[in-house]
Structures are given as structure tokens and as C-alpha cells.
């Protein structure tokens, strides 16, 4: 069943990819240039002086209308992107206007999110589909979630009272009385190490994909970042190592070239998953 479904989607995705490339040719966005800065390690600065020299590129966001469910009228139309690197880590700063800060997740409450994707192997003549790659042409997807930023800023495990301040605890949580190993089956996704359920290590999910529905956490996640909400806008920095550990992440060289695409979700408009806005590839060169 699944195979047939995937095949149908892939065919649609490839068709759209061709259309997307031809559209892009008409109004190609400016190229991003990652200036080299001094320093070592992850670049998680948001809005500091370090970014003042980086060229801002406005990236137009498009409705996702290929994969079901679609999002024909996305809330966010444009994201401003800047880039830097220090020879070890590449960073992108993404800014967009969003008057409804959404960082609490309940059944009908969605968090603001933004993601960048990079081809795992960049071939200028035949890049992957900008819509999450395709079979044989994988992409590294790095998604920052406002809810995970909130977890990190809180500095401790989330409790039910963080969502519902007046909620009482249950009489007994088995995990409070059991050993870590015995309690693991009672933790659901958290017990299985699902990256979306783990809190407090990074606000950025480090994943790979080779088409719609294939998004999978990398086995050795390294990406990190930081998001700050200020004056009606999100300012988010996502940073990745240029020589990553493990598979399914690109090796980036000083002076090299690649492409990057952006996807963004407005939690206040109940955007999540494929209900998103996406961009075509933007050229990215890494300065000497």
C-alpha cells in the first residue's frame, strides 16, 4: 500500500520540481554569500554585530500545493536570510514577520517553525528536488521549532502545569517509581528516543529526507541554533558543522558552493507538516 502511495507522490513531486525550476528561472533570487568570520564552534548568535556584514537576501515563500494536505494560502510570504561561516560551522540567520508568537503545543495549538535544507551531495547540473529531495538525491533538513526553543529556555523538563497552570498532577506516574529501564515503555515516543519528544538538547531537529513523507532524524544529530522573538518578528539562527559526523549531511568546503532552500510554518495559522510555505533553491557560496 505504502509503496504505491509513495510512487504516486514521487511522480507528482518530480513534475512539480520541473515546474519549480522553470519558475525560478524567471525570477531567480539573489545568491547567498556566507562571509567567513573568526571563531570556532557553532555560531548561535542571533542579531549580534557578527551579522552586520552579512548580505541579506529576501527569499520568496510559495504555497505547498503538491503533497496532501496542501497549504494554498500560507501566512508567511517572505523570509530574510543571511549566512556566515567560521571554517568549521556554517550558520544561517532567518528572519520573518509573525505577529502571533506561537510556542506552546496542544492539540489545536501549533508552534512556529522554520527549516533549511541542503543537498547531501551537491551536483550543480542536477540538484535534488527542492521539495524534500527525491530518491537517490537526499537532502539534510534542519528544522528549528519555537516549542523546542521554549523547552531549552525553560532549562528543565516540561510539566503539565507549564501548559495548564491549574492542572493537578496525576496521583501516580509510574515512571517516578520505576527504574529508568523499567519506566521506558511508559514514556511513549520519548522512551523510543524520538527527536521531537526529547527536550532540552537543541532547538533544531537534524534530519534527512529523500522525498515527501521520508523525513527521518539523523543518527548523529549535530545541528543547533537559537531563536528569539522580538518586535513582531522571529530571528532564528541555524548552524551546522561543515565536516559533519555520520551520513546524510553535506560536507562543505571553504570557497565551495551549494544551494539552500527554506520552509516556514506559522503556528497561529495551524501550519504544520506539509501545510507549509517553501522556497526554491537559493545559491550559497562559502567565502574564503
Amino acid at each position: 500500500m505504502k509503496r504505491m502511495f509513495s510512487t504516486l507522490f514521487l511522480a507528482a513531486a518530480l513534475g512539480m520540481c520541473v515546474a519549480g525550476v522553470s519558475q525560478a528561472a524567471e525570477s531567480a533570487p539573489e545568491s547567498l554569500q556566507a562571509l567567513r568570520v573568526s571563531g570556532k564552534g557553532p555560531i548561535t548568535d542571533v542579531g549580534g554585530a557578527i551579522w552586520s556584514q552579512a548580505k541579506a537576501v529576501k527569499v520568496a515563500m510559495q504555497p505547498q500545493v503538491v503533497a496532501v494536505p496542501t497549504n494554498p494560502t500560507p501566512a508567511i510570504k517572505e523570509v530574510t536570510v543571511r549566512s556566515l561561516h567560521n571554517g568549521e560551522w556554517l550558520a544561517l540567520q532567518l528572519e520573518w514577520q509573525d505577529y502571533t508568537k506561537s510556542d506552546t503545543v496542544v492539540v489545536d495549538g501549533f508552534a512556529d517553525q522554520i527549516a533549511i535544507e541542503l543537498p547531501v551531495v551537491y551536483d550543480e547540473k542536477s540538484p535534488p528536488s527542492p521539495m524534500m529531495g527525491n530518491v537517490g538525491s537526499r537532502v539534510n533538513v534542519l528544522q528549528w521549532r519555537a516549542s523546542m526553543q521554549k523547552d531549552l529556555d525553560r532549562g528543565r523538563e516540561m510539566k503539565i502545569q507549564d501548559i495548564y497552570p491549574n492542572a493537578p498532577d496525576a496521583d501516580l506516574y509510574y515512571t517516578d517509581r520505576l527504574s529508568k529501564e523499567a519506566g521506558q515503555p511508559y514514556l511513549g515516543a520519548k522512551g523510543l528516543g524520538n527527536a521531537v519528544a526529547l527536550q532540552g538538547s537543541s532547538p533544531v531537529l537534524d534530519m534527512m529526507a529523500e522525498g515527501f513523507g521520508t523525513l527521518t532524524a539523523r543518527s548523529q544529530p549535530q545541528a543547533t541554533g537559537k531563536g528569539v522573538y522580538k518586535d513582531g518578528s522571529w530571528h532564528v539562527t541555524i548552524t551546522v558543522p561543515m565536516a559533519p559526523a555520520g551520513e546524510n549531511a553535506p560536507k562543505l568546503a571553504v570557497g565551495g558552493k551549494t544551494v539552500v532552500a527554506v520552509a516556514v510554518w506559522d503556528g497561529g495559522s495551524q501550519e504544520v507538516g506539509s501545510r507549509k510555505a517553501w522556497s526554491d533553491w537559493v545559491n550559497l557560496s562559502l567565502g574564503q
Partner: protein
Amino acid sequence: MPKVMNWQIGREMDYPYEGKRPDAQFAMIIDTNKCISCQTCTVACKSTWTSGRGQEYMFWNNVETKPYGFYPLGWDVNILSRHGVQDISGPVYAGKTLFESAPDGTMVLGYLPEDVDYANPNISEDDSVGQMDTGGFLQMPHMQWMYYLPRICNHCTYPACLASCPRQSIYKRPEDGIVLIDQSRCQGYRECVRGCPYKKPFFNSVTRTSEKCVGCYPAVEQGRQTQCTMTCIGKIRLQGFISPPGKEREDNPIDYLVRIAKVAKPLYPQFGLEPNVYYIPPIHVPSPFLKQMFGADVEAAQQAYRKAADDNKLLSALLLFGSTPSIISGFSAQNGQAIAVNKKGEELVRVPFKEPIFVRPGFDEQFQTHRSNAT
């Protein structure tokens, strides 16, 4: 979109995946006439499966009072109003299923409940359809009515949750038809919560993934019935497997009650999911309400159930509810007893049609006291 055969609506319908049935299909029959809403099933399920942080208001099994009880609030009237008026009169459903009603850019017609809809899991408990006028309780049938509807995931043949998930994190097990959400792949998009008309996938705000009834699969794998079935003090449930259409076995109690005696009916078959929890409809409730909930031929089910005492086979199947913790594969009626066997043909239990009556003297000579219960 592929066409699949849905026997409950008597026709083929659109579904995003090909119609391959599992080797065995998990099924349950619930006798609404015997439910007293004691919530023992709910507590058994909760203490087994949903005791964690983020699951405080999550009930994979719940019992609600119909017509005004809901969990989550208004779940069925909300989707029924979106579904619109459909022709449910004939044996072949003339209306549209939820898959056939899907708006552009979606897989299924659905809606996302509000967070507050889960805040009162037992809202409107025991509310009947109206005030009872003076003397009304002496009339037959009663002017006012209500009944209890126990609910778990229906482990549908054509699950809308599975169809809605854009990343195929939901799967239907080929060995028993149980529908599960892969907790290692779920990204918490809540498309399943939106898509399931029965609102049985739940969002966990702490793990930020969706979770649902797992059909007590570790028990089922061992040939044991689910927790909600085994703990039911009223013995209102029977859990086992239903055969594919056309391959019914008369000695399988689930097949017999659903397809042959036709006393057990699916919940909202017009949605098109082919749900596999079947209900013996309440015999005191007006049929116009029940037709919308259980299908056009609900009156025949009510009549058959009323005559169960005169039908040894039907009586046998009904007596086996709650009689054994093991999954019943076959049953028979012999010498005034209902006999159940497992899939190896080993006898599980015998239930007499009539309980023997023992009459004791009203006065206990040994303890020199009067007995309050002499039979």
C-alpha cells in the same frame, strides 16, 4: 484513487491505498443493553496504557452517555454536520463516504477538535433526551431515553488516520489488523487527529506525538482478550477476529453475531472506514436515532436481540461475552450449554443457558442468624 470494497456500505469506495485485508482482523462486539457506565473498562485501559505525563486527559477507552455525552466534546455531531445529509436508507449506501467528501488538497473530510473539548471526558453523564413528565415512567415505551456507548479505536479496515498521515507513520498490522502509530516516526502533525471521525487518535502535549488505542496487542498476540473486555464487570464485550466478507464461519461468535444473526452493527458505517467494533443497539431507543448511528437495518437487529432467549445459537454466542480471558475462535450450543474453544480447538469454557438455582433456608442454624439472600 484506488477502489476498495466496503461490505458495511455494500459497495466499492475510494481509498488512498489498495484494498488488501489483513490475515486476521481484530474485532469487538459491545452489547449496549448491558452497559451501566461503571467505567471499569476506562480505568483498566488508563492504568494499563495512559498513565504518563501528557496523558492525564487521554482515554483510549471511554464510555459516554448518548445522545448528549461526548468525548471529545461533540465529536460525532461535529463530523455529521460537516458530512451533511446523506441517503442511508438502502442496503447499498447512496451517500458519500468521508474519503469521497474530502475537500481539495486533503485525504479525508475531518476537523481538528479544540483543546478544551477533551476537558470534560464524562460530560452529560446520564442526561436523557428530555424532562420526564409526571407519570411518564409508567408508560411503555419510555418517552425519554438515553444509553451508554463504550468506545475504543475501531481498528478500521480503511482507517482515516492512516490515510491522513502524510509520512506513513501509521500502519495496520497484517497479522491482526490492529492499527498503530509508530512512536519513533510520528512528528506530531495531528493529521490523524483531524482525519479520524471517531477522534480516537489523541495528541500528547508532553511527547508532542499522537497516540492511540493499541488494541492491547501484547495480550492479543498471546491469545488473550483486551483489558477493557476482560475487566468488564457486566460482561458486555467480546473480542476476537472477524473473517473477511464471504468467508464467514458460523462457529466464530464474532462472524455469527455480525454477519449471520446480524445483531451487532458498526458505528457510523456511512463514514466509510469499515470500523471493526460492533454494537448491539439499545432496544429501548427510537430507531430514527439509531439508524443514523448504526445503519439502516438496525430495527432487525433490535428484533433479533429481543428473541435471543428463543434462539439457542444466538443465546450461546451472547452468553460467551466475558466468560473467558482467552480469545474465542469457535463456539457451539450443546445440552443447554454454550461451549467456547480457542483456535487450536481446545475447550475454553462452558456457560449454562440457565444458572442453577440453590435455595437455602431463610434462617442459618449454624450461625443462628437470618440470611438476607436465600438464593
